[in-house]
């Protein structure tokens, strides 16, 4: 049984990393505001892909702006909304991307839900370098478009590495520009 002082110290280590229950809200909360965020960011992701907006990294490889939306958007919409963002982000490239995007957006919504600044940046970056390229490579393999796992992994890794500074910069600007955004993202 920890004495008060020790238990407080233990809390001190955990506190700055994780958001409190009040800051979080209910996990499946899906009121009209979350619907609004989900629809807005999902529509945004779709629109960006439909317009072809992105940064060309190599011939044939585009760093899609919609992935940045798919990473940052779930911070606003919560878990259920992340499903919507995932579906809408996936559709413009081909129906088969839906199962790729939805788990990823849900993952990000959890990251933003439970972690405080700057830990969500840290975890997001780690995810972008590990889980993302693996997951995409798996599906590229299943569909056969890039049959060698490591080639698929490497090409996604490069793209994802570029997403890291993009979404960090975006979130930092949003937090400073808009008090509303700061309240939600944390």
């Amino acid at each position, binding site marked *: 049984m920890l004495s008060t002082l020790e238990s407080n110290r233990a809390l001190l280590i955990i506190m700055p990393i994780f958001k409190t229950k009040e800051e979080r809200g209910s996990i499946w909360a899906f009121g009209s505001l979350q619907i609004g965020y989900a629809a807005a960011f999902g*529509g945004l992701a779709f629109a960006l892909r439909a317009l072809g907006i992105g940064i060309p990294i190599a011939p044939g490889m585009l760093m899609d702006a919609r992935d940045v939306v798919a990473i940052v958007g779930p911070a606003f919409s919560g878990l259920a909304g992340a499903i919507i963002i995932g579906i809408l982000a996936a559709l413009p490239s081909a129906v088969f991307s839906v199962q790729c995007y939805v788990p990823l957006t849900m993952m990000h919504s959890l990251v933003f839900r439970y972690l405080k600044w700057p830990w969500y940046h840290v975890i997001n970056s780690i995810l972008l370098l590990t889980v993302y390229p693996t997951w995409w490579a798996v599906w590229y393999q299943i569909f056969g478009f890039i049959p060698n796992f490591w080639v698929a992994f490497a090409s996604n890794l490069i793209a994802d590495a570029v997403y890291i500074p993009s979404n960090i910069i975006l979130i930092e600007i949003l937090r400073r520009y808009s008090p509303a955004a700061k309240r939600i993202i944390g």
Partner: protein
Amino acid sequence: MGLRIEVIPGESFLHKLDARPKFLLFLLITVIVIYFTDPIYVGAIMLAVLLLTRACNISIRKTGVIVKASSPLLIMYGLINVVLGPANTLAAKTPSNILFYLMPVMNWFPVTPQGIVQSVAICIRYAIVVYLLQLVLFTTPVVDIVLALVKWKFPSSLALGTSIGFNFVPVFMNTAASIMDAQACRGWKGLKSGNLADRVRALPVLLVPLFLHGIESAQKIAVAIEAKGFGYNLAKRTYSREIRLRTIDYVTLAVECIIFVVSTILYYTGYGTYMFTYSLLSGLRL
């Protein structure tokens, strides 16, 4: 990107088909296209899809725009498969199969006819998958998709959220274009100039105002649907449109099941691999 989100009006088979068997049809085609790695099999599927498009009075050219727009990617996947595909790696183990090397000096990246055959199948596969998406969008109004989801016990708020997102896509496309115009008026040179670091720095110039606009729109959407009584009683919500499965839908579902079973049998008994065409070709040549 070439993707058109609009419904081409019509009364054809695809238009009349309920969203649920339609969606399953497209899923089915995607699955069997993955089963088969033979260009002739996959080509036959492509032909069937094109005939279907024609039978529904939809212009193949118009639907094909998205394939044309994705052609760089398509070619890239094809080339990757020529070298790295399972067909190629397997066949290259027998040196007599090797046609040439991509890097002749080091004898790296052997290319075999089996590899070429399989990669053609991959290209057709990609084209079909991408083409199908456009075909869905041309024949299915968003509201039908929503209703189908609701019938499949998707929570209605999720279904509605998705449909609202769909409907806002053209609005956001306009906003994104306006933002890029507006920033150009301040001397911004866009996302295509400069080196990679410049471009990454240029992205927030577009994304920040776009995100802020997204946040603002989200709130307006939320207020609008609340003011129209959205949260009143989600369980008892009615829908002014009704979708029902009719004979045509049941027939289609039956046909889909048959196709699925047949394809799975073919797959597991080894038909439809690239060896089919390869043997045909080698038979012809030799």
